[in-house]
């Protein structure tokens, strides 16, 4: 090669080098440019520009740094980079809905967003810095963001007890327990009760084969024309706890045949006093008397009846026991009498109280039920079945086990299949790959899976054994929320110290009181030391509140003057000796250390105190806005006409100091009375006594 030619070549090479270096430079620049264009940087630059348009720019940019910001909570294994883009999340001035996302502030919530971050509640990927990775399910990430209507599920991960601030979660947990989901599934925080469905060992002595057939086909007796029922105007569909099992005609025949043969004990007809029976024939007004007694005894506090008013059928009454509108077409008359006399003899776990009956009352009330709470056409659509043959019985027994009936219903000497349904105690943590969608058309997300499974089990799996529930939209959302909150035990989630455990309490008294406590089932409605129902007042401190004589009188003849109450304490016909035993125990044991009964002596009240108290009541504090004395005043709080006979002065004084220390959810506002005012008000209130039998009593709840 000549030296002159070398220059030419060099020139050509130079061009090649130049071109290749440009290409190299471009290739090398891709990475920094891509880094520069990453979406979080774009959002941060946008935020700075946006902040400059706001009047409070200085404040908005005070803590701003051009970098990824991160919240790390090692105990919960959470790394949260959401605030990198959601820069304005805690800026009060950015709460307006006109502020563009992702800069808008979070609405106020009890937890500090800067401390807890976003993913603990909203789920999604806290580590991601790309919009799609953070919010959606992608190949690498399985946990999408939780739809906001189920957000309360995240509250339930740490708050295992009732949480008033999260009503949808509470409702969901309540339905899971009420619908007996624990019969087949293991659930987090829902204990298996002593009895789920009724014991069927002796069901053949209670109902006919035709009724069983009808019930198994569609377990509902009251249906309005539009297919819905309403309870007290609050719920538009009160789902019976028994779901639909999609049984074929031959399965219905076999199962009803088998169950109707379960008659381990024959019901012995009760022999009424012949005079009572004879009087019935002569006096047609006794039917009316039976109805009156039925109402006076307040059966409707626990049981509901369908009432048609203005063309609309509504269930009126409580939901502790079954609804009774057509009960006489369901049960055998001899069984009904035996049940009313002693429910626990037929069903040891029954929640129904054992009333004290006179023959007259028992006879007229059962006659009223037989003649009025009946529907002769109830079973008209059931084919004639006759006595079951041995093949049907054999097949029915097999079906009882195969269909999972044994998970809720006990039949003595029939062992159910254990762990019938899958364990759901960590369902809320499951990833898509752990769920079986089969060939279904459901979107591949956990939320869609739970919704579909609860709405219609067959939509997920055509061979599903789970029965069909008919939930309304609100309850469906509530159940989904509660199931999503179940993320397994705290050890697995690494949440030690952050879980607020659920509280369980039992109250088991002893002695003569215990016998009556069980007989009248006080705990079904009342609460004792955190155990029992919430329908009626909490009796944990009843001994500090009420006077012995008042309790005895009340138990013998419970009544209330609170016009806002729909449920009243049933009339159990408690004799004086039993009422005394109950009052003795309540006054001796159910006391609070905050109230010193010996500390306040009603005799020490002077007339000056009483007149000052009356003035404070009427003028300064105007207590009459909520309380009634005589015939004037409001009816938010209890009627005080007889408070001098009802309450202990020490209780009244402590109550005026701090009502919520005695009844935590009482709505009585805590006022700042001086000691003198408090004593004066107590003195005045203790003079309010009503003589005679028409004694006001408060069986009211705190509201």
């Amino acid at each position: 090669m000549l030296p002159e030619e070398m220059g030419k070549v060099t020139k050509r090479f130079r061009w090649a080098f130049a071109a290749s270096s440009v290409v190299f430079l471009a290739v090398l620049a891709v990475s920094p440019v891509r880094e520069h264009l990453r979406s979080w940087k774009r959002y941060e630059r946008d935020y700075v520009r946006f902040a400059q348009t706001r009047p409070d720019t200085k404040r908005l940019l005070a803590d701003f740094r051009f970098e990824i910001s991160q919240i790390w909570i090692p105990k919960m294994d959470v790394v949260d980079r959401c605030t990198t883009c959601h820069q304005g999340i805690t800026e009060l001035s950015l709460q307006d809905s006109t502020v563009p996302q992702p800069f808008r502030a979070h609405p106020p919530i009890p937890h500090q967003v800067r401390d807890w971050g976003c993913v603990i509640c909203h789920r999604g990927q806290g580590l991601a810095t790309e919009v799609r990775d953070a919010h959606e399910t992608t190949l690498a990430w399985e946990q999408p963001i939780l739809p906001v209507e189920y957000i309360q599920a995240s509250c339930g991960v740490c708050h295992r007890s009732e949480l008033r601030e999260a009503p949808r979660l509470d409702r969901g947990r309540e339905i899971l327990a009420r619908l007996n989901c624990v019969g087949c599934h293991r659930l987090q925080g829902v204990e298996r009760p002593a009895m789920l469905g009724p014991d069927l060992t002796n069901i053949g002595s209670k109902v006919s084969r035709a009724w069983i057939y009808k019930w198994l086909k569609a377990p509902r007796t009251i249906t309005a024309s539009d297919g819905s029922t309403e309870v007290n105007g609050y719920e538009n569909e009160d789902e019976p706890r028994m779901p639909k099992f999609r049984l074929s005609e031959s399965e219905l025949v076999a199962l009803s045949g088998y169950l109707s043969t379960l008659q381990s004990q024959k019901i012995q007809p009760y022999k009424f006093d012949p005079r009572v029976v004879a009087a019935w024939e002569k006096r047609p007004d006794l039917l009316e008397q039976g109805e009156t007694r039925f109402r006076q005894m307040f059966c409707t506090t626990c049981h509901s009846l369908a009432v048609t008013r203005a063309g609309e059928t509504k269930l009126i009454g409580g939901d502790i026991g079954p609804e009774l509108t057509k009960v006489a077409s369901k049960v055998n008359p001899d069984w009904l009498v035996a049940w009313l006399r002693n429910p626990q003899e037929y069903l040891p776990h029954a929640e129904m109280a054992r009333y004290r009956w006179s023959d007259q009352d028992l006879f007229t009330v059962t006659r009223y039920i037989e003649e009025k709470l009946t529907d002769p056409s109830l079973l008209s659509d059931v084919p004639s079945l006759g006595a079951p043959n041995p093949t049907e019985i054999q097949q029915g027994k097999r079906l009882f086990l195969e269909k999972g009936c044994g998970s809720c219903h006990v039949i003595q000497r029939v062992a159910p299949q254990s762990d019938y349904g899958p364990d759901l105690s960590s369902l809320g943590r499951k990833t898509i790959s752990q769920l079986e969608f089969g060939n279904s058309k459901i979107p591949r997300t956990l939320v869609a899976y739970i919704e579909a499974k609860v709405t219609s089990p067959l939509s997920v799996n055509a061979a599903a054994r789970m029965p069909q529930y008919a939930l309304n939209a609100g309850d469906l959302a509530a159940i989904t929320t509660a199931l999503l909150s179940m993320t397994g035990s705290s050890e697995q989630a690494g949440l030690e110290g952050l879980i607020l455990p659920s509280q369980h309490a039992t109250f088991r008294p002893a002695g003569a009181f215990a016998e009556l406590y069980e007989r009248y089932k006080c705990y079904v409605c009342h609460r004792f030391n955190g155990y029992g129902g919430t329908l009626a007042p909490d009796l944990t401190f009843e001994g500090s509140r009420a006077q012995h004589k008042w309790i005895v009188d009340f138990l013998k003849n419970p009544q209330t003057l609170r016009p806002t109450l729909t449920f009243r304490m049933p009339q159990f016909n408690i004799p004086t000796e039993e009422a005394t035993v109950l009052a003795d125990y309540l006054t001796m044991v159910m006391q609070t250390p905050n109230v010193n009964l010996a500390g306040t002596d009603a005799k020490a009240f002077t007339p000056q105190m009483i007149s000052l108290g009356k003035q404070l009541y009427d003028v300064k504090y105007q207590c009459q806005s909520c309380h009634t004395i005589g015939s004037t005043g409001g009816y938010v709080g209890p009627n005080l006409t007889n408070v001098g006979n009802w309450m202990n002065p020490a209780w009244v004084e402590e109550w005026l100091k701090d009502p919520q220390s005695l009844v935590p959810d009482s709505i009585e506002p805590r006022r700042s009375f001086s000691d003198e005012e408090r004593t004066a008000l107590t003195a005045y209130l203790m003079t309010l006594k009503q003589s005679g039998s028409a004694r006001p009593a408060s069986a009211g709840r705190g509201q």
Partner: protein
Amino acid sequence: MKPKLIIALLLVACASLTTACHKRLATEKPDPLSHAYDSEPDWNDPQRVIPLNYQQAQGKRVFYHYCVWCHADSTPAGPSNRSNLNPMPPLASDGSVLNSLSDDLLRNTIALGGSAVGKSALMPPWGNTLKQDDIKAVITFYRAIAQPPYQPPARPGPQYSVR
């Protein structure tokens, strides 16, 4: 042949229209449970449902526990104590009364009682019973359901926002 086809087409069209209408009617009926906690029907027009955010929903909860008995005409228990009182307390949704009162005044009235702000002593003080956050939440709930609607005052000027 043709008239038959037209009639058939018309029938199909009618059927689809009626089912469409039926569906719409069914979905328009508000479901009280699904809207139980995070929305409130307009008190003057129950068909209109007002969505509530977290704070307003907490306000609704507090309102229906403590306040509803005197500041509404129907209560969860049925009758209301409102007509029983003289002077009659304002309805919680009455924007013509509440809209002109500032958040601070409402907060004081609730916390300190009617007599502290020159109103009726029938309104007791709730400051010892309710938390500050509860009171704020109740006020946001009132603002959300107000009829005529509540207009927040103009945003405070820049002199308030400089730290």
